[in-house]
């Protein structure tokens, strides 16, 4: 995959950017497409009958079709939100009237805070029970584990598709089928899967699926919520205002059809247009090829780390381009500062997944995450940096003897 020169940051700086799981870099053509909006069609959407506004609306709805096609949904099943977090909160809020004491919500300790706290707080507010799907020793969600906790009381199952720390892929298709047998609704957090693998909501057959543009080569400020049409039609909106209303009276109002019903106010127009361009770019690369590329880099990294002394890897069986590890006895922040000097950008911390940290019995870890613009030389650079960091800090130990 030879795309580095599509990314202006990498053109400018000699950088091994290994923090895509936090946010991805942005290719020139996505930036270009957004500038094009501001320079050529700068106007609001869905309202104006003049040419600029009509053109802006067309580009906006084209992007919706592109994002819908990317996950094999219909355009009217895609709601644009501020990001995956907002999308997941939207679903939790919309289900509030349908959840009550006695109902059960299933989640897991693998979840990013954005797919944990909305359900935790929903349970708290409604009196529903929040139950954790037990993880395997390795830290995985399995069909077996879901079976062990799924009951007729289970109303919602909210699970991550790929864990942002462990890199494991959850068998969402099988879990969905199982959950549906009991009449439960399935919400999939695809923030770490949509950018990295072919994704088909019809095949998975989940009820909702959320992802963020900025993790998949698109701009910040926008994400998408896929929802099955009948849910989007039935559920009440959670934000009210311009663009989502059909007819306004003094004391009540009627709503537009989905997806507009859930898109209040002026949407992130330029961002949606950029998002559309990002998924087109990814489709051109081919999502199978993207997945394969990342897995190779992860495997190469694992083999290199395995050959190093003093490194603990927490997810040697990762299914994706995410590798999580620590240098023994050195705090990850200290490691990051050394790596930073070497031009390697890496994340240290709890990765917004404190329950995963608790599971690993760590307060913080290092995490390398790969994407289309990374290659073997980035891994080599990471490994050299880690050796340097390890040796540097080991030097102090000597002094302390």
């Amino acid at each position: 995959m030879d795309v580095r020169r599509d990314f202006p940051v990498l053109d400018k700086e000699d950088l091994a950017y290994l923090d895509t799981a936090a946010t991805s870099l942005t290719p020139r053509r996505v930036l270009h497409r957004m500038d094009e909006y501001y320079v050529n069609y700068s106007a609001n959407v869905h309202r104006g009958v003049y040419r600029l506004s009509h053109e802006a609306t067309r580009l906006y709805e084209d992007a919706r079709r592109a994002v819908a096609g990317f996950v094999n949904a219909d355009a009217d099943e895609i709601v644009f939100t501020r990001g995956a977090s907002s999308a997941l909160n939207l679903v939790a809020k919309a289900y509030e009237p349908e959840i009550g004491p006695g109902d059960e919500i299933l989640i897991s300790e693998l979840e990013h805070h954005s797919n944990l706290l909305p359900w935790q707080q929903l349970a708290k507010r409604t009196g529903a029970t929040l139950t954790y799907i037990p993880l395997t020793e390795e830290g995985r969600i399995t069909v077996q584990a879901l079976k062990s906790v799924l009951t007729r009381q289970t109303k919602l199952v909210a699970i991550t598709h790929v864990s942002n720390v462990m890199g494991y892929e959850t068998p969402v298709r099988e879990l969905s089928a199982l959950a549906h047998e009991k009449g439960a609704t399935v919400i999939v957090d695809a923030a770490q899967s949509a950018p990295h693998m072919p994704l088909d909501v019809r095949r998975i057959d989940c009820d909702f699926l959320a992802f963020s543009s900025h993790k998949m080569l698109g701009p910040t400020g926008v994400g998408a919520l896929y929802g099955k049409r009948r849910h989007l039609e039935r559920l009440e909106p959670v934000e009210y205002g311009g663009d989502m209303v059909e007819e306004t009276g003094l004391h009540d109002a009627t709503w537009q059809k989905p997806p507009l019903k859930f898109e209040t106010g002026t949407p992130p127009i330029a961002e949606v247009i950029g998002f559309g361009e990002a998924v087109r770019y990814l489709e051109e690369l081919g999502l199978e090829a993207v997945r394969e590329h990342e897995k190779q880099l992860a495997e190469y990294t694992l083999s290199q780390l395995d050959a190093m002394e003093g490194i603990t890897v927490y997810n040697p069986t990762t299914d994706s381009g995410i590798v999580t590890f620590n240098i023994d006895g050195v705090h990850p922040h200290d490691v990051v500062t050394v790596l930073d000097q070497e031009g390697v950008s890496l994340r240290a911390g709890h990765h917004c997944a404190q329950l995963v940290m608790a599971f690993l019995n760590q307060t913080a870890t290092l995490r390398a995450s790969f994407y289309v613009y990374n290659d073997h030389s980035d891994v080599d650079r990471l490994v050299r940096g880690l050796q340097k960091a390890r040796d540097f800090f080991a030097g102090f130990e000597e002094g302390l003897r």
Partner: protein
Amino acid sequence: MKMQNLYRQIIMEHYKRPRNKGLLEDDRYVTEHIRNPSCGDDVTIQTLLADGVVKDIRHEGSGCSICCSSASVLSEVLKDKPLESALEVSRQYKGMLTGEDFDADLLEDAIAYQGVQDFPARIKCASIAWQAFESTVKAGDDDE
């Protein structure tokens, strides 16, 4: 000036002097109300279907000349047509608006809207009455 291609005399005439306007309180009619919230156009179409023939069409609403007149033109063009023919006219009409090939002969007075294709922002205005009509006959289907 292209304006004359959009605003034909016949369009403005139907706008100012609509035919078949005003709804009826008659259960045999199927009613469909469509709003275009982006611009406020508001159209209601009532269709009386009998023996597979469009016996009558009534309409009501408010909006721009393109939108309101098209409801009136539609009501004249489709009246007394077999349902299948009416739906075919509707298909041809949509084709015309979106710049596809279409059979001009079938369209009768609705051909007046040919200029709309050069004003993409107005295609919706010219479509919603026809869309409402289609819904009335589909809704009719469901009832059977």
